[in-house]
C-alpha cells in the first residue's frame, strides 16, 4: 500500500494529516466546511452574548452547531489585566449563536494569562453583567440620537459581543 500512495484507492482509505492539510488548502471553503480542519483541535468560540469558550472541537454540522469537549469559559478584562475562567465540560453550541471561532495554539495560549491576574468567575460575571447593562443603556441612547437624524442604529440586547 505505501508505495502507491498517490493512487485514489490509497488516498481514500487513509490519508496523513499533512495530505489532509494539502487537500484542504486547495479549496477556498466559505461555508462551514472550512472548519473541518479544526476538528479534534482546541478552538476558541465567541458567542453573540459575548461569551468566550475554549474547547476541543469534536464535531460540527452545516449550521455550525458545535460539540466542544473539555470546554472552558473565560472572561477577560483587558484594561484591568484580569481574567476569570470556569470549566464547562461537554458543550453543544447552537450554530446561530456563534459569531466566530478559530484554532488556538496550545503552546502559546497560556502566555498572556500568566501576566494577568485571575479573579473568581462569579465576581467576573457580576462585573461583566454590569458593563453589559451600561453598554446597553449607552447604545439605546445613541440609537435615539441617531434616530433624530433619521438614521438606524442596529443594536440588540442579545448581540453584545
Amino acid at each position: 500500500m505505501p508505495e502507491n500512495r498517490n493512487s485514489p484507492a490509497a488516498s481514500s482509505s487513509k490519508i496523513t494529516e499533512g495530505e489532509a492539510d494539502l487537500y484542504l488548502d486547495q479549496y477556498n471553503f466559505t461555508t462551514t466546511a472550512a472548519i473541518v480542519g479544526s476538528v479534534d483541535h482546541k478552538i476558541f468560540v465567541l458567542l453573540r452574548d459575548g461569551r468566550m469558550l475554549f474547547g476541543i472541537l469534536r464535531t460540527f454540522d452545516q449550521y455550525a452547531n458545535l460539540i466542544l469537549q473539555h470546554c472552558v469559559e473565560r472572561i477577560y478584562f483587558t484594561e484591568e489585566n484580569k481574567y476569570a475562567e470556569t470549566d464547562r465540560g461537554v458543550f453543544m453550541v447552537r450554530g446561530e449563536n456563534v459569531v466566530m471561532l478559530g484554532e488556538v495554539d496550545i503552546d502559546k495560549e497560556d502566555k498572556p494569562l500568566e501576566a494577568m491576574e485571575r479573579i473568581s468567575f462569579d465576581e467576573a460575571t457580576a462585573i461583566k453583567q454590569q458593563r453589559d447593562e451600561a453598554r446597553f443603556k449607552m447604545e439605546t441612547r445613541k440609537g435615539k440620537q441617531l434616530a433624530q437624524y433619521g438614521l438606524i442604529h442596529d443594536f440588540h440586547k442579545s448581540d453584545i459581543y
Partner: protein
Amino acid sequence: MLPLYLLTNAKGQRMLIELKNGETIEGQLTNVDNWMNLTLANVTHTSPNEILQLPEIYLRGNFIKYIKLQDDIIEKVKQSNVQQQSQGHHQNRDFRRRQGGRRDNDRRFNQGGGQRRHEGRGNYNNGGNRRSYGNRQAEGNTAMGGFVQHHQTTSQQPTPLGQVQY
C-alpha cells in the same frame, strides 16, 4: 458523528440548556428532532425572577443558545455505536448480500402465470425469497411491511415493485 446525532443518542440523560434570553432549563431529555426541538422531563426552569419545577416541557430548538451535556457522553455514544454495528446491523446486511439484486427480476418473471414453465432452480430461488422476505417483516417495522405480508400469504401475489427496492 454530527452534533444532532450525539444529542439523539443522549436521550434519557440529564442536561442543562441555556436559552437565548439567558434563562436556563435543566432536565432529562426524552426526545429530540431534526430541528433540535426537545422534550424534557423533570425540569427546573430558572429565570432571573423565579425558579419553576415542571414535570415535562417542550422546547423549540430555535430558542436554544447552548446545551451543557454530561462529560462522558461522547464516549458513551461511541461505545453504543460499536455495539450496534457488531450486533444488529450484521444480520441485515448479510441477508441483503445473499439475496443480491435478483429478487426483483424473479418476481416479475413469475407474475405472468408462467411459473410452471420455469426451470426448478428459478422457482426454488423464489421460494427462498418469499420465506426470507417474511422473516424480514417479522423483524417488524413499518405499517407497509405488515401490509405486504398479509397480501402475500392470502393471494400469493408478487410483491409490488416499490416494496422490493431498497
